[in-house]
């Protein structure tokens, strides 16, 4: 079963009241077809349900190469499991909307 870790980064997640996008990173396990397809499904769902979302998808090895965490200071938002994807994604959306309401 596939899973994807979700992180937020950029001005929206850094308590900046001025932001253009909600930057989200989907971190998936490998560059296999299945892993990439599951990430793309998660991305599609988030884009459909979150205005101004800007989504980056990286595999673990791609993240390691780019050193994305250190550079972006990404914050962990949660994990999406294939068997409970819609529920997990809605939890993430609620978390993001919670951050929005604090602005």
């Amino acid at each position, binding site marked *: 079963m596939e899973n994807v870790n979700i992180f937020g980064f950029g001005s929206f997640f850094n308590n900046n009241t001025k932001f253009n996008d909600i930057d989200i990173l989907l971190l998936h396990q490998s560059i296999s*077809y299945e892993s990439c397809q599951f990430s793309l499904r998660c991305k599609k769902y988030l884009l459909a349900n979150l205005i101004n979302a800007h989504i980056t998808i*990286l*595999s673990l*090895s*791609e993240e390691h*190469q780019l050193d994305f965490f250190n550079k972006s200071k990404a914050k962990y938002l949660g994990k999406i499991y294939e068997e409970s994807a819609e529920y997990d994604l809605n939890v993430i959306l609620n978390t993001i909307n919670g951050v929005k309401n604090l602005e």
Partner: protein
Amino acid sequence: MPALNKKFPWMSYYNNYNFFEDRMRSHKKVNSIKKISDSFYEIDLVDGKIVNVFICECYSFGVAEYYECVEKLEKFDAIIINSNWCGYTMEVKRYCREHGVGIFDIRGFMAALNLNNFWEYLTIEEKASFQENDWL
């Protein structure tokens, strides 16, 4: 200038690829170029080969985006990342290369077109990265 368009086909911030078109027209190995759609070009080479090019401004083009392209595009031989603000991962470079597809910035594509197997072209930095990972 950051990439504006968040969704496939990650269209250019300026809504055109004029610089890419100009560079292609000036290349000695290029006979002509044909714009098929906003993000898709047919590059006709002087040796008679045709290179089908998808061009975009995806902020960080990885293997997942490659699969997205495979799903949405009929056929392509090369992917060009247009903006200096955007880039691609070494994993997708390797993956595309193994599948006979080139992925480059414009400068890299200009150099690659001088090779018969243009998709195999690596910049000095890419070559070093490939060697470091034992991919060569």
